[in-house]
Every structure is written in structure tokens, then in C-alpha cells.
């Protein structure tokens, strides 16, 4: 009955191998260490996509497995970005300020340097004082800690209030939207201490590594994002494969029944909600240095709704579905909205994809929800199901067996 974790979850090794192959492939084709067939900016797009896959896996845990339709996980993602962004911006500005003050006749005092950094960072919002939230901005370690602690704490407090009063279903989704909207509106204010609608910028420049070209930095971030996604996937697969996963699915399907078995449903929901918020924070902390800028618009309610659409289209309740959805939809999205898709002239009217893409996406979401609730990931079922009878009782799991047949067919 007991077999190894990978044998029981064949999608995990397959995914990890594909992810490693992808990362090596991009490295070989990238500008820094390889042939240069993949541009630095596209490398960044791919690295960012890996981060989106990671938050999609987190949302799948919370929605696909536990049945909590959170429309607020991008708030945690954005907060993760802000937390690492504060350190990146502070340290880089400090280097600039120190360089410019180095020529002064009298060496600057530490206070003068801090004031200089403050003027540089907060000049755009008409201030030069460091707000309290920047108290730890000079410590990479503490800001990294805050990447998980701040989203985790927000999720813990929000979840405790919401789950304790047994808010479920649509009402909970609305509350999560309200949370993300409130956070975005707060951050939009100039006196929020995080530069209002300017957000934090210049995040692609790593302090102390100014001489390293972006082509290299982009590959490093790709590696880090791939490692985070791999570990996140492994963690998620481990969580859902055991009894904890059983309880999660039980809560999704019939939470009252789970209570009568003696499990405190609220505690489990809070655990999953908080854990996934922390994963989202990590994903955001890797994403925004690749994007270069984080601002309150990133946390807008619509972002969290997109996330749900990705997971729904990819196939919720299966981890690879979340990854497929996030990859496929976000890449196709950026192709359509980036102006790369050719316009379709219809004589009287020209279809401009930049305008029409959202409508296509919305319709596919409705289509998937109504006609293919398993999403793209459901195709895997068709395929393994169809291949299964061909195995003639061979001693292989369905996934391994079909994998071999695919190789043979290629």
C-alpha cells in the first residue's frame, strides 16, 4: 500500500523535470550565458510567468482544494513586491547618495545620508521624512522576513475575522475583494508612506551589483523563480496528498460534515489562507524585481479576478492545472495586449486585439465554467483515460504508462 511520494503523485516528478528542462533551455538560449536567441526582456517575461504560476498554485490550494474563492490573493502578491522593493530602493538610493556626497569637502554624517535618501525617495510625494513602515528598509534580512510576515499577518487577521463568523461562498469572495480594494486605495494615497501611485521603481537594479548586466540578472531571477515554483509545487503536492489534503477537499465538498468529524474547519481554513498568502508574498517578491516597478494599480481587484480566471481555465483542483492556466493565459494575454497579435480587418470594422482580448478572455472563462469545468487540465484525463486500456495490464501507473507511449509515438 505504501509507495514513494513520487510514485503516488506522478505529476510531481513530471512537472519538476519539465520545469528544470525549461529553465536550462532558457539559460542556453538566453543572452547572458547562451546563444542570445531569447532576449533579456523575454527572459524577464518568462521569469515573471513562473512567479504567476506560483501564485496560481497558491490560489489552487485555497480555491481548488479548500473551496474558498479568494478574490484577494493579488493583494498578498503585491505586498510581497512592496516589501522587497523597499529594500531594493533604499539600498540603491543610498549608493547614489553616498556617491554624490563623496565629493563634498566635509564627509557626510550618517544622518545626512539618511536625509539624502529620504529626499530622493519621497521627493515625488512632496516629503523627505521616512515613514515608520520603512524602519527596516536597510536590512535585507528583515525585509525578506516581511515578504512572508506582512502578507501572512494580514491574511491571518482577515481570515480570523471572516472564518470565525462563518462567512462563506459569495459573501467571503466579496469580502476578499473589499480587502484588496481597500489596500489598493490606501496605497494610492501619498501619505501611505509607500509613494502613492508612483509606487516603488527601479527595482530591476540590484544594490551593489550595478556592474552586472541585466541579461545576467534576468537569468538569475529566472533561476530563483523556477526554484521557488518547484519548491512551492512540491510543498503543495505534499500538503494535498496526505490526510490534510483529505480534510481540505472535505471542507470544499461538505464543511459541516467535516465539523462533525471533529475537525475545526475554521482553523484549517485559516491555516490554508495564511500559508497561501505567504506563498503569494514570495511570488510577488520575485516578480516585481523582474517587472522593475510595483504600484497600487497592481493590487487592483481585477488582478485577483484574473488569477481566478487562469486557475479556472487551467483546471482547478489539480496543481498542474493552475500552472497550465497561468502560463497559457498570461502569455497569450501579453501577446494579444502587447500589440503583437495582427489586427483583423473586416472592411467596415477592424478587430483590434488590444480592445477585444478581454472579451475573448471573459467568454472563454464563461465557456470553461459551463462546458469544461475541469479546464485545460481535464484534457490530461481524456488522454490518460484513452491510453489506459492499451497497456495490456502492464505494470505501470497510468501516467507513467502514457508518458512512455507518448515518447514512443514521437
Amino acid at each position, binding site marked *: 500500500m505504501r509507495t514513494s511520494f513520487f510514485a503516488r503523485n506522478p505529476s510531481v516528478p513530471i512537472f519538476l523535470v519539465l520545469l528544470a528542462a525549461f529553465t536550462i533551455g532558457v539559460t542556453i538560449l538566453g543572452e547572458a550565458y547562451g546563444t542570445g536567441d531569447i532576449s533579456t526582456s523575454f527572459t524577464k517575461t518568462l521569469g515573471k510567468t513562473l512567479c504567476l504560476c506560483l501564485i496560481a498554485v497558491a490560489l489552487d490550494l485555497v480555491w481548488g482544494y479548500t473551496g474558498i474563492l479568494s478574490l484577494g490573493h493579488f493583494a498578498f502578491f503585491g505586498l510581497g513586491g512592496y516589501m522587497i522593493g523597499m529594500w531594493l530602493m533604499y539600498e540603491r538610493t543610498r549608493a547614489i547618495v553616498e556617491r554624490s556626497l563623496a565629493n563634498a569637502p566635509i564627509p557626510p554624517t550618517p544622518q545626512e545620508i539618511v536625509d539624502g535618501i529620504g529626499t530622493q525617495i519621497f521627493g515625488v510625494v512632496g516629503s523627505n521624512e521616512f515613514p515608520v513602515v520603512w524602519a527596516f528598509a536597510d536590512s535585507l534580512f528583515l525585509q525578506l522576513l516581511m515578504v512572508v510576515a506582512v502578507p501572512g499577518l494580514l491574511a491571518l487577521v482577515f481570515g480570523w475575522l471572516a472564518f470565525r463568523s462563518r462567512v462563506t461562498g459569495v459573501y467571503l469572495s466579496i469580502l476578499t475583494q473589499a480587502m484588496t480594494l481597500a489596500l489598493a486605495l490606501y496605497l494610492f494615497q501619498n501619505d501611505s508612506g509607500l509613494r502613492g501611485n508612483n509606487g516603488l521603481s527601479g527595482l530591476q537594479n540590484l544594490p551593489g551589483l550595478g556592474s552586472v548586466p541585466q541579461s545576467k540578472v534576468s537569468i538569475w531571477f529566472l533561476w530563483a523563480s523556477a526554484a521557488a515554483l518547484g519548491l512551492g509545487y512540491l510543498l503543495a503536492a505534499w500538503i494535498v496528498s*496526505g490526510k490534510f489534503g483529505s480534510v481540505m477537499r472535505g471542507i470544499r465538498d461538505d464543511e459541516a*460534515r467535516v*465539523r462533525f468529524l471533529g475537525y475545526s474547519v475554521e482553523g484549517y481554513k485559516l491555516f490554508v489562507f495564511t500559508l497561501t498568502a505567504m506563498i503569494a508574498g514570495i511570488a510577488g517578491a520575485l516578480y516585481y524585481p523582474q517587472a522593475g516597478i510595483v504600484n497600487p494599480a497592481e493590487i487592483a481587484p481585477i488582478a485577483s479576478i484574473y488569477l481566478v480566471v487562469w486557475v479556472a481555465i487551467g483546471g482547478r483542483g489539480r496543481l498542474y492545472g493552475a500552472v497550465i492556466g497561468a502560463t497559457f493565459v498570461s502569455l497569450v494575454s501579453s501577446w494579444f495586449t502587447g500589440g503583437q497579435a495582427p489586427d483583423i480587418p473586416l472592411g467596415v470594422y477592424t478587430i483590434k486585439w488590444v480592445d477585444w482580448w478581454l472579451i475573448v478572455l471573459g467568454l472563454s472563462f464563461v465557456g470553461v465554467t459551463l462546458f469544461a469545468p475541469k479546464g485545460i487540465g481535464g484534457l490530461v484525463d481524456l488522454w490518460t483515460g484513452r491510453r489506459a486500456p492499451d497497456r495490456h495490464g502492464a505494470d505501470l501507473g497510468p501516467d507513467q504508462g502514457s508518458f512512455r507511449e507518448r515518447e514512443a509515438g514521437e
Partner: protein
Amino acid sequence: MSLLEVSGVSVSFDGFKAINNLSFQIGDAEMRAVIGPNGAGKTTFMDIITGKTRPDEGRVIWGEKSKSLLSMSEAQIAREGIGRKFQKPTVFEDQTVHANLLMALKNERGPLSVLFWKPKPDDLARVEALASEIALSDQLARKAGELSHGQKQWLEIGMLLAQDPKLLLVDEPAAGMTPSEREHTTSILVEAAKTRAVVVVEHDMEFIRRLNCRVTVLHEGSVLAEGSLDHVTSDPRVIDVYLGR
């Protein structure tokens, strides 16, 4: 000394008194049948004990330490040792029979201990033993949703036994079962009542007779009569409201 003591409990839904000044007691290893016409309040009575419904007044006292169940959550009450089988079979249809039983098995219930929990040989042996008791040994790997109605009823009884509760509340366990399935269900319940308290709600008189236990008759939310089956079925008021219809 009783295991559970319900006294003077009333509950109303929108002004309608579903339970009216109900009192009830059961001892440690006792089997009790609860009968009564539809709408008598049998399911609501179980809802009150298990914390699903909060009574407007009255007391529900549990165990040696005489704890009140009224301030506990459903999950806490379940952990105290009160297990429940619902009228409509509710199992986790998307999961295997094995996973259903494993989830019900008596073990730590906190998120962290469940996260790091691994089934020990003992646990797996217990699942096997339960499966054979409920005649589902060869169905362990199937999804619970694929079982027949009667098998789902048994799986739910198996989950109830897996929790190893001190008190089992069983709501209409034989509904939708064939006569031979009913007989098997009776023997499972009788066996369980040797070591713990069992309350069975059932309509079928033959089923009740085979349980061979004290009977409580509910009517309009309160106890109408209590005693042996022959005693209550010869009570003219019981005949009037229930049997004579």
C-alpha cells in the same frame, strides 16, 4: 450516572416549537431507539446534541465531569466523543472509501498534527477491520460516490465507528436498504452498543424490534412515552398519534 442528560430543552423556528421542553437521558453502554411521526423533532434533537442547533432554553450535560455541551462548537462536541450519522448519507464522494475512513479514524485533529500525520500500521489495520465489518473490504480503493445507497450508509456507519465515540447518534440508518442489508446494519449497531451508548432513530418497527432495547417516543417535540417496545406500542396515546395513523 448517565452519559448524556438533556433537560428542559426547547427550540423554535420562526415561532414554531420544534422541540418543546424535552428531557432525555442515556447511560454508558446503552442502546436506545427513538421513534415518532415525521416532524416530531427527532433530527432536531440530534442537531441540538451535536451543536448544530442552539436551543432557546434547557441544559445538555455530558459525561463524568458533567460538562455543558451548549457552549461547545460542533467540532469540540465531536472530539468529546459524540459521533453522528445523518439521515441522508453524507460521505465524501470525491474521495476513496479508504480516505473517508482514514479521515474519520480517531487521531489528533489539529491542522499541524494532521499535516505531519502518517498512517501507522495500526491505523491501516483498523481501517481494514472496519471495512470488513461494514462489508466494504473490496471497495476500499473506489471513490465513495460510486457506492450504492446502502453501501454509503454503511460507509457512514463505518466512519462513525472509526471515530470511536462514546455516544453514537444514528439517524435512520436503514433507509433505502434491502432486508438483508438491514439485518447486517442491526448486528453492527447491537455490537457497537456493547461498549458504548447508541441512539437510533428509525421508522421501521421490525428494525426496532430486532434492536431489542428501550424505546423513546417523540411527538411534537417532547417525549410522549418511554419503555420497552411492547410497553410503548400498547400505550393508547402512542397508538393515537403514531401507530394508529
